[in-house]
């Protein structure tokens, strides 16, 4: 199996253009597991973790995060999103966080990908580059199914971009172990007070990352009523209603990690807690 370790972006894009059967390797935290279990036998591998351009990030009002930035670096240097940092902290073990990347999370595109609900709730844009040019795809259009996305075989995920949404954002992940666990259910909530925008996205609760538009609308109304710049005091009835709306947005299944009934239930609980925490801040 030929492995090309690319140092420059154009070199990587040429390789992808020439060989559409190439498997992209970033941190290897998904691919190496697949190889170990004998589930993947790639024809060719392109390693992109040494490409400088993919390791660049930029802060400010428009945040850009390079695809090959590892979770560990993102936690050290800041990601331009508090929720994304919280999500990165839940990924695997220190070793996995030292190797895994946000680009890899996007590339694998698992419904359990920890950073994906945050990117969805932030309305992030996935930046795809090929030898033919660049495409910018909103996250909502990027992921099409479990481990399926609109990335073409000659395209490389180079970055994710989003508008800085301020401090009122959080990520919650439920698993049956207190560390190193794949999400049974997860939720990202973003209240962008400046833009008066609410994003709520759910992980491990359907074939793709799901948004909860009715719940988002409900929270927007609450913020409108309370005033976007003021603390939000959530009544018990409002908390219950939010939980109901979030649970209803999920399309969970029963699998080896959890039941659909539990997933729906727990989403309601963590949605209420997330809003209570963000509203009080």
């Amino acid at each position, binding site marked *: 199996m030929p492995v090309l370790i690319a140092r420059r972006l154009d070199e990587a894009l040429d390789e992808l253009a020439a060989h559409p059967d190439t498997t992209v390797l970033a941190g290897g935290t998904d691919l190496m597991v697949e190889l170990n*279990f004998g589930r993947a036998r790639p024809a060719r591998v392109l390693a992109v973790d040494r490409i400088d351009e993919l390791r660049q990030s930029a802060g400010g009002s428009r945040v850009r995060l390079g695809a090959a930035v590892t979770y560990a670096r993102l936690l050290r240097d800041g990601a331009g999103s508090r929720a994304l940092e919280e999500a990165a902290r839940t990924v695997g073990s220190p070793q996995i966080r030292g190797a895994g990347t946000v680009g890899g999370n996007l590339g694998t595109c698992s419904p359990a990908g920890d950073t994906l609900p945050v990117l969805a709730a932030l309305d992030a844009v996935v930046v795809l580059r090929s030898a033919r040019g660049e495409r910018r795809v909103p996250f909502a259009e990027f992921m099409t199914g479990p481990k399926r996305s609109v990335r073409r075989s000659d395209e490389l995920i180079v970055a994710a971009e989003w508008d800085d949404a301020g401090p009122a954002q959080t990520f919650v992940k*439920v698993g049956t172990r*207190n560390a190193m666990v794949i999400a049974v259910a997860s939720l990202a909530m973003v209240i962008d007070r400046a833009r008066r925008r609410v994003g709520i996205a759910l992980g491990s609760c359907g074939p793709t990352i799901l948004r909860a538009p009715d719940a988002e609308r409900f929270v927007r109304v609450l913020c409108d009523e309370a005033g976007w710049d003021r603390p939000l005091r959530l009544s018990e009835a409002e908390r219950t209603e939010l939980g109901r709306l979030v649970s209803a947005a999920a399309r969970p299944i029963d699998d080896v990690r959890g039941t659909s*009934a539990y997933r729906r239930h727990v989403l309601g609980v963590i949605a209420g807690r997330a809003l209570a925490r963000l509203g009080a801040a």
Partner: protein
Amino acid sequence: MTVAARPRLRGVVGESAPRSDAPPKTQGAFAYASDLAREGMLHGATLRSPHPRARIARIDVEAARALPGVAAVLTAADLPTKVKFGLMKLDQLPLADGRVRYAGEPVAIVAAEDPERAREAVRAVRVEYEVLPAVTDPVAALHPDAPRLHDDGNVIEDVRVVHGDPDARADVVVEDEYEVAMQDQAPLGPEAGLAIPDPDGGVTLHVATQWLHEDLRQIAACLGLPERKVRLVLAGVGGAFGAREDVTLQIHVCLLALATRRPVRIVYGREESFHGHVHRHAARLWYAHGATRDGDLVFVRASIVLDGGGYASSSSAVVANAACFGAGPYRVPNALIHAVGAYTNNPPAGAMRGFGAVQSCFAYEAQMDRLAAALGMDPVALRGRNALRDGDRIVTGQAVEGSAPVADLIRRCAALPPPAPPPGLIAGEVDLTALPGGVGNVTRGEGVRRGTALAVGFKNACYSHAFDDFSTARVRLVRERGEPVAYVLTAAAEVGQGIVGVCEQIARTELGVQRVVVETPDTSIGSAGSSSASRQTWMTGGAVLAACREVKAELARRAEAHDRVRRTPRDGEPVDVDLAPLLDPPIERTVTHRHRPTEPRDATTQNAGHVAFLFAAHRATVDVDVETGIVKVVQVATSQDVGKAINPLAVVGQLEGGIAQGLGLAVMEEVRLQGGLMRNASFTDYLLPTTLDMPPVVCDLVEHPHPDAPYGAKGVGEPPTISSTPAIVAAIRAATGRELNRVPVRPDDIVFGTAARSGWRMRPGADPRTAVRM
């Protein structure tokens, strides 16, 4: 002449001596079995049945044999004998012949030039199966109408304990049904072995195992070789916990080596390891406890069904343990306990730390809490009131001798320092790792309730029921560069538990020499028995002690002959260097050590079947997020009767490790089966406790020496896994008010309050074959 002050010996009995294998193991330099290599070796791989129950219509190996780099492809047709193997009952062929009884059963083996080609050859073997409906409910398997999975029926073992009046009546009775799911031993080192053909037509096998001689017996029989032509050498063992009690790849790798006349190595991956070894028995238990209004136990009645899976393994002894210890470490005047092990088409079950005592302890300790609630008594007081005392008889009629400080353990454990109080609702920055769900950010105190509870358990040490239990040790005291050095050889498997250190410390103490070399175990010496049943310190430690004492006696004779009698060492003192010249020739003694005989089991199991009993109490404190069902075990405190801690630090290691496994069974570890197929054969989905799941452990080592054991040291390995599980679950019950009659406890059980129901109606104490479908 004055005798110079002699330096004190380091690492004698009672000291927390550092392990000699710790630096290489922590630095990655230790050679585990999977690191074995030999020039020109081939790589073996195994084809396993994808079906839990099927007839094999045809196997075509031609395509596989024709692949380049493939040296051998073997099926049942190539077996040199039709001899079956098995730990206690010979019921399995090394390769399935005509029938498969569980998904994962080996059907064909191959040897090839590299692992990739070996896997390719496995894929190229064509097997035609006629799939049959799988029997996966062990209660259904016992039904008279169930398909017969083996020629002798579906009952592997049937043990009925009848004690006092089995129909006794009581003022207060509590009754319920319990379930224990299948747990995996999950040793970090996967199964591995290297077989090398010998010029005499025999074979030498380097393998990670718990019991070299038992492997040898089964391997030689299946190969059709005399036992003297099969030699085993212990390779580095990366954990065992019962999973290496049975033959897995041993016969396969020898068959391939003999067929190819080349060295062959087989190393399982994690997924294959899950399919390759036996697991802890899943269990259904129906219990009734009766007591007087004052809280004195009147009776215990129980029916227990253990799922043995496709083959028997050690099920018969596990069933006996579940029954014999099924009433707990309490004075119970009347008991009726009926335990049956069933063949099913699930993966086979066998030995795992705790060995049958774990399953019943979960049920009887839950019952004791229910009884306390029904009586309006404090559950700790109820346990103390009924605790076994020295001389009391357990329900098998055997008196507990030498030590039974059960009430003392309960009292001490309940009094150990509690953890810090729960943090309450936290605003702002918080150490999430201290809360349920950890950095998942699920709770910052919301929904968290604390619970604390205590449980106590017991089991036997060493082998039981008239088994000839022995261990052999050879001790050589030699002079090297003027210094005395002791060499110790036994066949005892170091599986991580620390038997090497125990042997070193005993030899140092007895012989008074600093340098002790424990040699690599092999079958050139007599059996040591298995590294299981918490028995190696007692048995192999006892053999080393006895051999050292014979060596010391010879040394004294020589010293007397040379008029150096005053300088023979006293216990714990270094041997005088002047004695070194007496070691020409070296002194060598080989001793076989036996514990006192035990009685065989009879029809009602009223006999002295066990050599000794091990007791421990555990108190667990948990924080539960009751809205999400996530559990954080905050602390486990334990008082355990260890007899004598030969190495206190190593004992603490055993207690902490055993509690980690008990915690795993309490809240996360479960082999998930669906129609006999394993759904989580990986460490991604078979969850083991991480360092953030494992709480601080407060260890209280109670030293109540057993008169028969070396230095009074009892086994310590198993009790930590027995009552830690029920203590944790009881603490979760205390925090949530939920029933929780099944382990592992799932978040659903906490959130929705679901109770596990088998769907079978069973009167506790009745024959499990009479269960009626509800």
